[in-house]
C-alpha cells in the first residue's frame, strides 16, 4: 500500500553486515491498488531480509497467480523470482528447492491460490518438509479477479458485491499444523513490527515455515461489514505472545534464565524470544495451538503471532539423504557412469 510504502521508501540508508541498504532489497514500484495490504507485506520482507543481511542473490522468490503472487516483483529486485501458475507454486518450489538446497525460498501466495485451486499442492508441500517460508496474503477474496469470496472467508462473510460466503472457512494455519508444518504463525499486514520479527524467525527456521498474513484488499473487501477490513482486523486482533527475533550475532546464549519470556533456540543459533501475555500459551504443542485458534474464533477474535515451532525436525534433504553439493551443481563426471558401466548393463539384457 502506498502509504505504508512511503514510510519505508526513505529509510536512513544504514548499511547492513554485507554492506547493503534497504534500497538494495526493494523491488520495482508496486502496481497494486494504493492501500493494498500486500504492499505492506513486501515492505516487511524488505526489512526482514535487509536486517538479516541475506545476500539477495541467494534468495528465490516463488509465487502462483493473484495480486499477492505478483507482489514478489515489488521486493528483492536482486533476487530471481518465479511467478508460476495459479495454485501450483508449491510444486515449482519443491523442484527448485530440491535442485538447489542452498538458496532461501520465500514463497508468496494468496488465499485463492492456496486455499482453493492450490489446496492439494499446499497440503503436500507441507508434508515434504522443505526448508522454505510459505506466506499467504489472506484477504478473504480473489483480488485479481475482482473480489469473489475466497474459501478462507468465514461462513456468513460478505464481500463488497454483497455475496455471502455460504460455507465454513478453511483455516490454513490449522491445516498447516495438522499436516506437520514445523513453524506456523498468523500475522496482520498492518502490524509491521510483528510481521518483520516473525518473518525473520521464519527465514532463520530450518524447515517449513507457514505464515498466514491477513492482508486487506482495499478494493474488494474493506467495506464496513467485512471481516478482513483494516478496521475489523484491528478491532479483533489478539496476541498470546509477542515474539522478538534475536539474531546469532547478538550472542545471547540459549541457557539464559527465563524471565517473563521464553527463548526458543533455532537451528542456526538465533533465538525467538516470546513475551507472553497469556501465561498458558506455549508454542511447542500443535493441539494447543489449534485449540487456541478455535477458542479465539468463538470469541470473535483473531489470534496472531507465532503459534507453533519445532526447531529440531528433519528437513526434506535430510530425509532424502540428498548429496551435500546441490543437485544443480553436480558435474557430468559425477552424474554420468560412462560406457564401461553401460557395457555391463547391456550384458544383463543378453
Amino acid at each position, binding site marked *: 500500500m502506498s502509504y505504508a510504502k512511503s514510510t519505508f521508501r526513505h529509510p536512513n540508508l544504514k548499511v547492513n553486515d554485507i554492506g547493503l541498504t534497504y534500497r538494495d532489497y526493494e523491488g520495482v514500484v508496486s502496481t497494486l491498488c494504493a492501500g493494498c495490504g500486500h504492499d505492506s507485506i513486501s515492505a516487511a520482507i524488505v526489512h526482514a531480509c535487509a536486517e538479516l543481511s541475506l545476500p539477495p*542473490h*541467494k*534468495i528465490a522468490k516463488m509465487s502462483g497467480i493473484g495480486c499477492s503472487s505478483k507482489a514478489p516483483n515489488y521486493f528483492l529486485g536482486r533476487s530471481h523470482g518465479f511467478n508460476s501458475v495459479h495454485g501450483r507454486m508449491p510444486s515449482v518450489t519443491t523442484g527448485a528447492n*530440491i535442485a538447489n538446497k542452498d538458496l532461501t525460498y520465500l514463497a508468496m501466495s494468496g488465499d485463492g491460490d492456496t486455499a482453493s485451486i492450490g489446496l492439494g499442492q499446499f497440503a503436500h508441500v507441507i508434508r515434504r518438509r522443505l526448508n522454505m517460508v510459505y506466506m499467504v496474503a489472506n484477504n478473504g477474496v480473489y483480488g485479481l479477479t475482482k473480489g469473489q469470496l475466497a474459501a478462507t472467508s468465514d461462513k456468513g462473510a460478505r464481500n463488497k458485491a454483497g455475496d455471502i460466503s455460504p460455507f465454513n472457512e478453511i483455516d490454513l494455519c490449522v491445516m498447516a499444523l495438522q499436516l506437520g508444518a514445523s513453524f506456523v504463525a498468523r500475522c496482520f499486514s498492518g502490524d509491521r513490527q510483528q510481521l518483520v520479527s516473525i518473518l525473520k524467525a521464519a527465514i532463520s527456521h530450518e524447515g517449513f515455515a507457514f505464515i498466514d498474513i491477513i492482508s486487506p484488499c482495499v478494493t474488494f473487501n474493506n467495506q464496513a461489514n467485512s471481516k478482513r477490513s483494516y478496521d475489523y482486523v484491528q478491532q479483533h486482533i489478539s496476541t498470546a505472545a509477542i515474539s522478538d527475533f534475536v539474531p546469532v550475532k547478538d550472542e545471547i546464549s540459549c541457557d539464559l534464565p527465563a524471565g517473563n519470556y521464553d527463548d526458543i533456540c533455532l537451528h542456526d543459533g538465533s533465538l525467538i524470544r516470546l513475551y507472553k501475555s497469556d501465561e498458558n500459551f506455549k508454542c511447542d504443542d500443535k493441539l494447543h495451538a489449534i485449540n487456541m485458534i478455535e477458542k479465539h474464533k468463538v470469541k470473535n477474535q483473531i489470534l496472531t503471532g507465532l503459534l507453533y515451532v519445532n526447531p529440531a525436525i528433519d528437513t526434506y534433504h535430510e530425509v532424502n539423504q540428498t548429496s551435500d553439493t546441490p543437485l*544443480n551443481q*553436480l558435474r*557430468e563426471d559425477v552424474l*554420468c557412469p560412462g560406457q564401461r558401466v553401460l557395457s555391463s548393463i*547391456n550384458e544383463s539384457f543378453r
Partner: protein
Amino acid sequence: MTQSKTNNFVIRFANTNGTGSASANHMFAKAIMRMGVPVSAKNIFPSNIQGSPTWYEVRINEQGFLGRRGGAADIMVAMNSQSFQRDLEDVAENGYLLYDNSKSQDLTAVPSSVKKLGIPIAQICEKEYQDQRLRQLFKNVIYVGALAALLDIEFDVLRSLVSDQFKGKEKLITPNIFALELGYQYAHSHFDCPLEPRIERRDLIGEQILVDGNTGCALGAVYAGATVVGWYPITPSTSVIEKFSNYCERLRIDPATGKKNFAIVQAEDELAAIGIAIGAGWNGARSFTATSGPGISLMSEFLGLSYFAEVPVVLMNIQRTGPSTGMPTRTQQSDILACAYASHGDTKHVLLFPKCPRECFELTTIAFDLADRLQTAVILMSDLDLGMNDHLCQPFRWDDERRYDLGKVLNEQELEALEQYGRYQDVDKDGICPRTLAGTHPSKGAFFTRGTSRNRNAVYSERSDDYVDNMQRLEKKFATAAALVPEAVIQQTRQAADISLIYYGTSAQVIDEVIAGFEQQGLTVDTMRIRAFPFGPEVRKFVQKRKNCYVIEQNRDAQMRSLLVNELNLSPQVLTSILNYDGLSITAEMVITKIANERKIAPIRQGVQR
C-alpha cells in the same frame, strides 16, 4: 506352399497375473535369443477381466520380422483355467496346445487339426514340492523345460540363463534347473520331439540386446545427468521411474558420503509432477517426469508455461489408448496433436519419436540436451508397446567423449563482463536468449520469470509490440529447433518408388516385413521415418518429391498426417492414411492389405476429385 516353421512361428502363453509366469516367459524368450535366433515378445495384460489373464506372445522369425504377426498362435501354452476356452480358439490350424491335464479339461472346442500336448504339471509339482508357493512358481518353469524339449532348445542355454538370473542367489539355481529338467524329461518321454515349429541354432543376434523401452528411457536419463524427478504413477509409464530409481540407487550414490546424487518425488498428481520438474529446470538441474494420456491432459497448463517462460524440462509420454481412460493397458500413438500443441494460446513443443529401446536411450539423452539448448519442454513420445515389451535392438551406447549441452547459461564471470543483461535479448539471433540461474552473481542477472507477457528485459508489458516481438522470437526459436532435432531417416530408391511410406515410433517394427511383402509383388518401396517435430527440411523434400505418400500411424484421427499437412502447408491429397487403432500393436499384414486396397481405389478417388 506352406513356409517352414523352423525359426518361424508364434507361441502364446496364457497365464494368470501374479503367478510368477512373467519371469519364466522372459527366460523362454531369452533362450531363443541365445540360440542366435531373432525374437520379440509382447505382453497383453487387460486391466479388468475376470481371472486376471495375461498373455505373452513370442514371435520367432529368422528374417528378423519382429512386429506382431497377428492371427492365431502356432503354439498355445494354456495355463489359465479361466481363459482356457477362449484360448482354445486362438490356436492356428495344425497348431499345438500345451496344457495342464492334471484335472480333466473340456477340450471339445479344440479343432481336430490341433495337437494336444497334455502335461500333468500340477500333479508333478504336488509330488515334488511341499511348499504351496514353490508349487505355483515351478509350474511355470516346468512348462519352459517342456518347451525346450518340444522346440529343440539346447538345455545348456537354459542352464546358463538360470545361473545368470540367480547370480548371487546360488541356492535357487539347482531347484530351478531341476524344475526345467522335470518338464524337459516329461516332454521327451511322452511326445514326439521336436515339433514341426522348432528352433535351430543361428548366428543372427550379434551384439543385440532384448530389453524394454522404459529401461532405455530410464538409463538415458541417468546418462544424461537427470537429477530431479517428479512423477505420479500411471501405466505404462511407471516403470520408467522405477527403473530410473533402481539404476540411481546403484550408480548415483556418492561413494564418500553414501548420499544421493538424485531426488525422486512421488507427487500428489501430474500437475505437481511436472511443476516439480519445471521448478528444478528453472534452477538449472536436469529434471524430468514420465506419464501417459490422462497425465498429459493435466500437465497441459504447465507445458504452456514452460514454452512461454522458457524453462527446460523433459517429459516422457508413454502413450496408451485414449481418449479418457480408454483402454489403459493397450498401446496407441494418439497423443501426437495433444503434445505438439499442448496448452492454450499459440504453443508448440519439440517431440521426439523413438522406435526401439536403443533409441529410447539415445533420444532421451538428446531430449535433455535439446531442452537445455532450447530452454523449453521436450516430449519423448514412446508408447506402451515400446515401453513395456521386450524388443531386440542394438545395445545402449554412450560416447565417453560426449559432453552435455547445457545451453546458454551465463556464469558469474560472463555476467560480470556484461554491461547490461536482458533475459529475453536475442543476442545470437537464433531466438534463444541466454538465461541466468538464481545465486550466480550478487548484483547482475536477476529477473522475474513469468507466464505473462514482458519485454526483452523481462519487464512486465502489455504493449502489443512487445507481445508480438516475443511471440515472433519464440517462433524463430522453433525454427532453430527444426535444425537441431534428429533428422528423419530416409531410405529411397533412385527413381521414385511405387510406394512411399512415412512412419514413426513403433510402427517401425513392421516396416521391413511390409517392404518384403511388396517386393514379393514386384513393387519398390521408399520410406521415411520421422524422428522429431518440428520437421526438418528433409521431411518436406521427401513429401514434395512424391505424388503420394502413405502415412502409417496407430491412431484413429491421422494425427501425424494432420501435423504434416498443417506444418508443411501440404495439400491433404498427397498424404494417405494407413491407420491402426485397435489397441494392439500394428501388423505388417494390416499395413499391406490397407495399402493394397488404397491402391485399388486411388484412381477412382482421384477421378472424383477432378
